[in-house]
């Protein structure tokens, strides 16, 4: 699986017309054909593609994605220490936590809103509550996230000046005391976090609703009702647990979308996360960074799916027993 991903990301890079030295040369007009040849050798670009792939794969196994072309030889993935003991932080190492934090907070907000909405729509199926939630879902599916970001930016940032519109911190961040630092970070994060949670909301709400409708039609729910349990107990104790189970899988599956979606949000709000890093790398044709992020992003997806499967097995006694029996 990982090998397939690495193959794809590697060969995409070699679709490009021209090679990286064209680009390097355009940064530095003085670079001669000789220095370009040197560069090619440095990056093994003088070898056949298959050999390049082999070399790259070999380094990748040790999570060494090489060094960035564009930004002063920074390591792509993890920090390195040079012979003088200076530590250079890796680009993904710095960017990944930011993106993860934003998306995890965003996901929590999505779930907090989507689950109650989904339940409401299912318990009031075909009534006005359900209809308005359905309408809302259609709009949520259709609204471009970056447009929403622009509108929020305009309304909250420009018209009312309530929130800062870009970056993670204010310019005077270093001079603030701890409390003000926290406040500053939070206010910078509000908009970038809202965007992924709103755009993810429609899908999860619909999913919870359909799950609930499914479960509420089952025989054991009828049994529970027949026993004379209160509707509240039926819905929240019997139905909800079963309806939420598949949600674990959906969250696992939504990871690539979340990471991919971070490109636009982070570019708009100038957040130095994975998305922005990727966008910049793509514009600069910074091959090692692009390949590194593609691979790490895909690996994250695989890990996410694995975690979701394990969590599912842990949460669902049927699967759990089945696993133990084998």
């Amino acid at each position: 699986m990982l090998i397939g991903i690495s193959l794809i990301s590697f060969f995409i890079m070699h679709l490009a017309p021209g090679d990286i030295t064209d680009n390097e040369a355009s940064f530095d007009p003085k670079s001669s054909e000789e220095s370009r040849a040197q560069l090619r050798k440095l990056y093994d670009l003088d070898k056949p593609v298959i050999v390049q792939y082999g070399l790259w794969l070999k380094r990748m196994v040790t999570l060494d994605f090489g060094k960035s072309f564009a930004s002063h030889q920074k390591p792509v993935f993890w920090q390195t220490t040079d012979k003088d003991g200076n530590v250079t932080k890796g680009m993904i190492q710095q960017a990944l936590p930011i993106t993860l934090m934003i998306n995890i907070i965003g996901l929590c907000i999505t779930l907090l809103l989507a689950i109650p909405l989904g339940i409401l729509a299912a318990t009031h199926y075909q009534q006005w509550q359900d209809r308005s939630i359905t309408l809302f879902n259609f709009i949520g599916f259709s609204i471009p996230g970056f447009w929403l970001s622009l509108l929020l930016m305009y309304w909250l940032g420009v018209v009312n000046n309530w929130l800062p519109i870009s970056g993670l911190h204010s310019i005077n961040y270093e001079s603030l005391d701890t409390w003000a630092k926290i406040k500053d970070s939070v206010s910078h994060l509000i908009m970038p976090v809202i965007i992924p949670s709103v755009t993810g909301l429609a899908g999860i709400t619909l999913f919870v609703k359909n799950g609930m409708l499914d479960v509420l039609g089952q025989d054991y729910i009828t049994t529970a009702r027949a026993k004379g349990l209160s509707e509240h107990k039926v819905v929240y104790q019997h139905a909800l647990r079963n309806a939420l189970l598949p949600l674990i899988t959906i969250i696992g599956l939504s990871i690539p979308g979340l990471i991919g979606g971070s490109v636009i949000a982070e570019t708009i709000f100038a957040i130095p996360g994975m998305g922005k890093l990727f966008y910049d790398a793509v514009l600069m044709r910074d091959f090692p960074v692009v390949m590194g992020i593609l691979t790490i992003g895909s690996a994250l997806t695989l890990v996410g799916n694995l975690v979701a499967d394990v969590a599912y097995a842990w949460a669902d006694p049927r699967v759990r027993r089945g696993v133990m029996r084998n």
Partner: protein
Amino acid sequence: MHNNLLSRILANPLAKAGFIIIAIVFALAMLAPWISPYDPNAINVKAILFAPSWQHWMGTDGLGRDVLSRMLHGGRISLLVGLVAVGISTAIGVVLGALAGYYRGWVDTVIMRIVDIMLSIPSFFLILAVIAFLTPSIINIMIVIGLTSWMGVTRLVRAEFMSLSQREFIQASKTLGAKDARLIFTHLLPNSLTPIIVSAVLGIASAVLMESGLSFLGLGVQAPESSWGNILTDGKEYIQFAWWLSVYPGMAILITVLGYNLLGEGLRDALDPRSDAQE
């Protein structure tokens, strides 16, 4: 009860709403060269960043170009990209899905493995990477969006073929000695058409969103050609002074995508023979 497709579609309120929205958007885009009040690329230094008025219904941009005219012309491109990209992805998806679902065995294993790999790479990253290494142009965008979004259709067609193969009429014609091609083209494919159409319509919705996102990032449709996405790029640039540059193009994207989504969901209800009973 329903005799033809159109009346069936129009009988479903969702599909009807979607159909009307899409029809209007298409009509406006088709008629763009005749109904645009100005040349979409005409720069007018005397009319920079004018707010909406009777002269310029949607205002002007940073180069004094009429936003309404650019919106109308941009619509042509956004719609075209959506249609062609989905045409490509549906074609790939149907072929691969049919192969996997019909022949099974190792063909199926290989194809589904490729699908799994493609699905685990964050799609927007993949598209961005490919786009950036090719030169951004309308044709490249259509191809790239098409090449990176066929996985859903593949799975769908495969599942449909697999379940249809179990049905008696397929078994019967197999027993009668029908060739593979005949089975696929006269029996399996026509019977899988409904989900394919629905997923294609919904696919257009996401392709339009994708194109506008790429153009917004400057990696899609390039200036001076207008698209809803790249008008929004200007909108971001001038967000402090010119709200109209952000509001209108986004609205156009929202309405178009909403139209396709409504149409797709409506078609699902309308074309599904099982849902007839409810009406």
